[in-house]
């Protein structure tokens, strides 16, 4: 997309940075800085941990400059790193739920497509507040799938690749997340 607009693609910038172009990294950082930070912050719900992981993530990008091969989109690669750092964090903090929680598609089909309450549609601030609260209550894997879709604009396949699961699992997680969020936003009207 960016290449079509005459801008260097993420992959090209990363390769240029690998050859010593510091400016290329600055461009790359400015493009992905906020989405990645939001992803980590909302996934973890803790600013301190989010900052730590965010910095560590970018340091890994810096240190991988020489080995980077544009086999996949830069976004998929960098969010895969983020996912791996999250997994490490969960393991270190005893949050095994992320690994054990798997959804079945049969259950998924039964979920109702709840409507968002009318008053929330008018009161955006309340809607946002309730959405973020509902997001925090989601299982880690489902929240991650939703955040990846919102922040990185990745497809189901890309989300699956970044999180190391099959596409069906990624799709299932995403559907669960959306259904639960809608249900929370539609309850108290």
């Amino acid at each position, binding site marked *: 997309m960016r290449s079509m607009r005459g801008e260097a693609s993420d992959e090209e910038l990363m390769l240029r940075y690998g050859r010593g172009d510091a400016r290329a990294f*600055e461009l790359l950082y400015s493009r992905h800085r906020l989405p990645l930070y939001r992803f980590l912050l909302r996934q973890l719900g803790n600013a301190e941990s989010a900052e730590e992981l965010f910095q560590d993530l970018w340091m890994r990008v810096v*240190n991988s*400059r020489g080995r980077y091969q544009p086999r996949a989109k830069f976004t998929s690669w960098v969010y895969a790193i983020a996912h791996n750092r999250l997994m490490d964090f969960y393991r270190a903090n005893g949050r095994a739920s992320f690994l054990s929680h798997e959804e079945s598609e049969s259950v998924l089909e039964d979920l109702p497509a709840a409507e968002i309450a009318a008053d929330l549609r008018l009161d955006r601030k309340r*809607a946002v507040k309730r959405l973020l609260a509902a997001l925090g209550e989601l299982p880690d894997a489902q929240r991650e799938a939703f955040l990846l879709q919102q922040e990185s604009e990745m*497809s189901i396949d890309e989300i699956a690749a970044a999180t190391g699961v099959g596409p069906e699992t990624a799709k299932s997680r995403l559907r669960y997340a959306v259904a639960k969020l809608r249900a929370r936003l539609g309850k108290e009207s």
Partner: protein
Amino acid sequence: MIERRDEELSKIYRDAEEPRPPQRVDDNILAASQRVAGNLRRPATFGFSRRWGTPVAVAATVLVTSTVALMVYELQSGSDAVAPQVPRGGRTAKVSPVEPRADQPRTPPPVVLQPIAPAPPISQALQSERAEQRPGESAASTASAGARQPAFAPEAPRASDVLSKREEVKPAPATAPPAAASERARATQQAPAPDALPASDVQQPIRPAQAPAAAPGASRLRETGLPLQGAGAVTSRLAAPEANERTPEKWLADIRKLKTEGKATDAERELAEFKKRYPDYILPEDLR
């Protein structure tokens, strides 16, 4: 696989305030990235030295270490030798003649030990013995000794040093050292051809350290008049006791005598016995 986004939820999500990473985190990340990029941009020479510095240093260390180790080894092996080294030019000529025989156990080349055992009294006795030998042979031997001796002359002082140490243990006649010294001095003055030196001729005057013990035996043997060139059985029976009693020079003279009398078999047997008895002895050219 494409999953349509829930646009309604997405709109609400995007309305949320945008948290930003702290400035210090941004600074840290950008500084690190620039530091790394700065390293990448360094001149090619820096990269070359960085890439090859360690291997070159390791190679140089190995080279220097092995060189020093070799030098130390050579120094040690040189100092371990009891006797001084023969000059390189004459070394091969002296060592090569002693070829190991099939029936004889191999011994390491003892060249360096040859010149260190001068026994002046024996040399005097030997010369007197030679005088008793056939005139032609004696003359030839003496002439060749005179001509060749100088090649060993530079070694003589060191050999005498060693000898003097031995003589501290085995006291020799008081007149011996001056006689040997004068003989060596005479040989040095003659000194014509330094490279054509059969070791035995040179060593004869300064050779056997066991001469004082052997000399009486040799004279006793002469008194008994036993024929050295007799039947093979008798010769071999006599060889062992003779080897204990005869001086090497006397023994060689006997062998030479056998050869000149045409008793080549006996001479060879005697020579074999001699080599067994004195494996380190460098034979004169005519007996090799």
